[in-house]
């Protein structure tokens, strides 16, 4: 209980990942959907850092860096697209994004 091992971090990572997935599934607003994906990426980062520490290997930290870089570029492009969509249609709800009639 008092000795924090790898399993503690993996359980924490699971909980945070589950919270992020619940957010992805129940949100309709695209901006809040982006927030939920940030939670997913961060929970995986915790798992990478923990494994890197407990196995004495730096590869996990390297992958965490690349995940952070990808998250930053995803935010830049995604937010740009959201702004364009909002200027044209006035809302960013997923349900209204049906341009094909079928």
């Amino acid at each position, binding site marked *: 209980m008092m000795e*924090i091992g790898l399993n503690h971090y*993996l359980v*924490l*990572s*699971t*909980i*945070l*990942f*589950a*919270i*992020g997935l*619940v*957010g992805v*599934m*129940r*949100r*309709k*607003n695209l*901006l*809040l959907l*982006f*927030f*939920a994906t*940030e*939670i997913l990426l*961060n929970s*995986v*980062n*915790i798992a990478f*850092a923990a*494994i*890197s*520490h407990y*196995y004495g*290997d*730096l*590869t996990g*930290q*390297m992958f*965490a*860096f*690349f995940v*952070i*870089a*990808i*998250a*930053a*570029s995803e*935010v*830049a*492009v995604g*937010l*740009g*697209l*959201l*702004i*364009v969509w*909002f*200027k*044209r249609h006035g809302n960013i709800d997923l349900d209204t994004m049906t341009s094909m009639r079928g």
Partner: protein
Amino acid sequence: MFEAIAFYLFAFLTIAMFYIVVTTKQALYALTALAAGMIFISAFFFILGADFLGAVQIIVYTGAVMALYAFGMMFFDSTRDVKEKQGNKFIVVGLATLAAVLVVVIFAAPMLSENIVAFYPQLEGVGNTQQVGLVLFTKYLIPFEVAAVMLLVAMVAGIVLAGKKMDLSLTLMNAEEIEEAEEKNKKVLS
């Protein structure tokens, strides 16, 4: 002892903050809670001895990404309550838990099945930042440069997408000018 206290404290705080992010109806509360959660996550990196990663987490996530979201939210109507999907909550929570456990199993299965040997063992008597530099600029040099190009592409894309028609402001125009601009927009789009 202190490690355990810090771990449980920050675990509780992180989970509470992220719970607020996925449940609140106000977009501004979600933004603030997410920024706080990012700071608390950097605490885990410091506990784990990944000092450089923790500093990068604070600078990039709370400094850059959250500021970008905050500026982006100026374009959106963030005071309105967010509508939710009305689905079966048990199915959503069950599926999410299942998928999360699956991810951890994917992580943990190779470790259990075979003894992992460290490719890049941590050096003695060298700080974490120095080790990160040594590995990043030797073994991971090509991915590092590809990431730099990707960030450049993302920056150009962000400028091109968000910078269109920055000169018109809907709040400073009167009604006729707005209608005229919308007519022009429709012609362009159709």
